[in-house]
């Protein structure tokens, strides 16, 4: 089974966001970058499928030279190959999708895994977009996956429950928490990953379909009224919620 896993490099989730001087992006100074947490789930699922069925796992990212480090994380976790589609910061999600699709067309994977969203821009669109470009079925936000021959059955989270979706290979799957517990790479694997080759391809830079004009830190004035734990305080809270905030 040949598996392609699309990964992205994102700021650590604990990062304090500071707006950069261009007013449109974050100031990368002091930011620690990690492999997108949902992509770890995607990669883990791919590795388990390979362990069960044989084949190989290719991790791919579209980005700048800095994303090499993220690919090393994927190699340390156990990916066989790593591909950097290298260029400037991608124009938008569509541009990333087209670059991923170009590679997928050459490789013809049986399954393509992605995360349900990248926790930087939370663009929430690559999996279905990539699948549509490739003319493949897709199931997103998957928390349980069963592949039997070419039959695919997946549970995906929806409002107020789950739905079971069925399709056939080849297909695109996006990973949600609960799918598995990603492994931690061991030190020797991290060392070995440093020496593995990374295939580089020049990215095809398309015109952006969307533009960012401004980035800001949302300001919401909170009342921050701190009360104690006496019965009077509790009654006071209920009155405030009822009469001031008017939420009950």
């Amino acid at each position, binding site marked *: 089974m040949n598996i392609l896993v699309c990964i992205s490099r994102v700021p650590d*989730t*604990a*990062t*304090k*966001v500071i707006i950069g001087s261009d007013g449109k992006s*974050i100031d990368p100074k002091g930011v620690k970058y990690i492999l997108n*947490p949902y992509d770890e789930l995607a990669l883990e699922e791919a590795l388990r499928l390979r362990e069960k069925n044989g084949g190989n796992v290719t991790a791919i990212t579209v980005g700048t030279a800095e994303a090499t480090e993220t690919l090393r994380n994927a190699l340390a976790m156990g990916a066989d190959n790593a591909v950097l589609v290298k260029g400037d910061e991608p124009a938008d*999600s*569509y541009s990333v999708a087209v670059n991923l699709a170009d590679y997928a067309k050459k490789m013809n994977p049986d399954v393509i895994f992605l995360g349900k969203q990248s*926790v*930087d*821009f*939370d663009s*929430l*669109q690559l999996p*279905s*977009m990539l699948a*549509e*470009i490739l003319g*493949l*079925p897709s199931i*997103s936000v998957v928390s349980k996956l069963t592949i039997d021959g070419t039959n695919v059955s997946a*549970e*995906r*989270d*929806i*409002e*107020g*429950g*789950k*739905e*079971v979706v*069925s*399709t*056939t290979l080849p297909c695109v799957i996006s990973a949600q*928490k*609960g799918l598995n517990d990603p492994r931690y790479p061991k030190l020797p694997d991290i060392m070995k990953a440093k020496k593995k080759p990374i295939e580089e391809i020049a990215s095809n830079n398309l*015109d952006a*379909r*969307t533009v960012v*004009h401004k*980035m*800001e*830190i*949302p300001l919401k004035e*909170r009342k*921050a*009224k*701190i*009360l*104690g*734990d006496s019965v009077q305080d*509790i*009654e006071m*809270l*209920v009155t405030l*919620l*009822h009469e001031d*905030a008017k939420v*009950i």
Partner: protein
Amino acid sequence: MNNILVLLESNKNSLKRVSLELITAAKSLSANNSAKIHGLLINADASNAAISAEYGLENVIVAKTGNAEYSSTANASVVAQVAKNINADVLLFAANSAGLEVAPRVAVKLSAGYIADCTALTVDNNQIMAKKPVYAGKALITTSVKTETKIFSLRPNVFTAQKADTVAQNVTEFTPVLSAADFSSKVVSLMKNEGKLDVLEADVVVSGGRGIKGPEHYHLIENLASALKGATGASRAVVDAGWRPHSEQVGQTGKTVSPTLYVACGISGAVQHLAGMSGSKTIVAINKDKDAPILKVCDYALVGDMFTILPILTEKIFEVTNK
């Protein structure tokens, strides 16, 4: 802007609230131009959309896929065909589990730019400006679409559905052309969390954190939630401990909620948790530590032991809500 197409979703015999929110958003986009708004309902009867007349939706298009099983690929084909048929230049979807799967496919089919999970749409110099949270709500971007056809999905619960002058509805049927390939994936069964309100759909969310000490105490959270007619949520610490299902996790790697009232009980307020709930209208924290970070981002707090506070609070709330 000439024609705005809104994908409606039905719920039992009516429309989901988010569909009414989309209609209101479409109306505000068309306020200063004469754009026509069309609501599309797939595999449901026009009667399900009747309520939208009260929200000012004049045109309802009904399309059947000819297959009872839900398929995101088939629905995407239907939306794209309808959009072409009516020359839609703006399409609005709900940023929910269905909309988020369908919209990107439609964007590819219509060569349109797409922005997901918008929390505000305004028209500025004839250009639609969309605001959307990024970095899990730690920042907000203002963005626009450059292509002729523009697609947006809107975060549920953020745009308020507003009643308008009731209109007479004009219902048309559309027969899509679909092939077997359009049904390449399909929903074969549904598992509803019976009788449980989902955090994504609730007006009030009461969440418990590690402070609850164990699953056997969760009834304290559940009781407060039921007094408030809300849903129960949880921090990751609680989900990782296996005390609550992941479907209840609020935060960066859980769900992003924006209810009218969010009550955080025994939750410290780590950035990853805040990322999932900072858009709530009113935030209440109950925590025994007066230095907990959650107290810096809340509207009201009760500082003390939640084991004594919660039963009293629940009772006092019942007194108000049962009046």
